[in-house]
């Protein structure tokens, strides 16, 4: 059965006196030193790796001793240790005491190594510590790689025009008319529609300077209905004082033009 000194001797056979040298840190650098450890697991890994120890066969007594030595150094500097370091110290002490306890040979294989959980956690932490180092080594934007870009050609960011359906337009009209009817008695009638369109067409066609012969406005190709619509449009335009009608003498051609500025 192993005892503490045998464990020490079996691994690497390093003299114990070397250990404090490993651990020696100039007092003023202590704080900086602590900063470099990401907690007790990291510190333990440091002690193990520094001495080339096998993580699966940690000389628990020796490593516990080194760990405690480190904590004592910190305390001597009145450095406030994070609670995790103290929790680990207690745990190490417990593992050490169980490890040193003589075990019955029969139970040996079945009994779990008291270091097992520590080894598991150290390995688990170490693999992510490595993963973090590898992540840091991956080529990344802004340090190793740079997005390639060229100035875009001048193009006004096109914003597509909103879509409108006829149904929406009707709904809007309905809403407006309903509101209007509640207030007054505006009437917008269907039959005026084609006349209204013709009114727009006439307004666009005529101007305020030149006279146009009235008969030119009628397009026989449109048939009788077309002529009637045009005629009604002209009458409506006159009624709305948008058009003026001129006839120099009876039965002479009738001329129309838009009502001018004056």
């Amino acid at each position, binding site marked *: 059965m192993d005892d503490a000194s045998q464990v020490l001797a079996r691994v690497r056979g390093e003299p114990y006196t070397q250990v404090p040298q490993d651990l020696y840190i100039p007092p003023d650098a202590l704080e900086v030193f602590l900063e470099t450890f990401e907690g007790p697991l990291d510190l333990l890994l440091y002690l193990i790796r520094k001495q080339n120890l096998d993580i699966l066969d940690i000389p628990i007594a020796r490593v516990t001793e080194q760990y405690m030595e480190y904590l004592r150094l910190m305390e001597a500097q009145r450095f406030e240790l994070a609670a995790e370091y103290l929790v680990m110290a207690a745990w190490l002490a417990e593992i050490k005491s169980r490890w040193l306890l003589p075990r019955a040979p029969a139970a040996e294989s079945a009994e779990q190594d008291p270091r097992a959980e520590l080894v598991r956690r150290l390995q688990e932490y170490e693999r992510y510590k490595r993963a973090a180092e590898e992540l840091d080594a991956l080529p990344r934007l802004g340090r190793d790689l*740079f*997005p*390639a*870009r*060229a*100035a*875009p*050609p*001048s*193009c*006004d*960011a*096109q*914003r*597509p*025009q*909103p*879509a*409108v*359906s*006829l*149904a*929406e*337009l*009707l*709904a*809007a*009209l*309905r*809403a*407006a*008319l309903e*509101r*209007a009817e509640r*207030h007054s008695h*505006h009437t*917008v*009638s*269907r039959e005026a*529609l*084609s006349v*209204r*369109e013709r*009114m*727009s067409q006439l*307004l*666009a066609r005529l101007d305020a300077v030149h006279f146009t012969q009235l008969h030119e406005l009628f397009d026989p190709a449109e048939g009788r209905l077309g002529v009637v619509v045009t005629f009604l449009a002209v009458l409506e335009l006159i009624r*709305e*004082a*948008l058009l003026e009608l001129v006839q120099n003498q009876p039965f002479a051609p009738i001329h129309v033009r*838009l*009502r001018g*500025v004056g």
Partner: protein
Amino acid sequence: MPALKTILEAALLAAGEPLSLERLAALFDEYERPERAALRAALAELAADYRGRGLELVEVAGGWRLQVPAAYARWVSRLWEEKPGRYSRALLETLALIAYRQPITRGEIEEIRGVAVSSAILQTLKERGWIRIIGHRAVPGRPALYGTTREFLDYFNLRTLGELPPLAELRDLDSLDAEAHSSLHQRNSS
């Protein structure tokens, strides 16, 4: 060490802004720093390499710049295309009144709607090419008369204004709702 021109290419692409000859020279350690003539020659080579490609090298006030040629604007501009917006109720009502009551003045629209019509709405409709001023009413102030355009009819797939749904149908609100719903449904399912 990569070719000088590819180092310059890399720097110009990473910078995304014009780089002067001085800044390009400063990328190199002194012992390997190219002469200005060498830089110019390498830039000329690069410019030639880009012929027929989706980028070009031009000399501007600030130095040398990589840019996407204007010929590609048609496709590239799609990168920043925004989602189409929606028109406000006020705009739609204004458009509907102009369509059904043209020629109509702004004042008349306001009278029916019971609220002011903003200039922005009329501007938007004009820019869209759906309405235009077709005359002026001969009353004090000579207000503009609005009417719809050919583009308006085209957009709504109408041959004439007469094909606008008759107002009488509007009275039957329920049927209109049903119709609007079914036409929307058809559009979605097609």
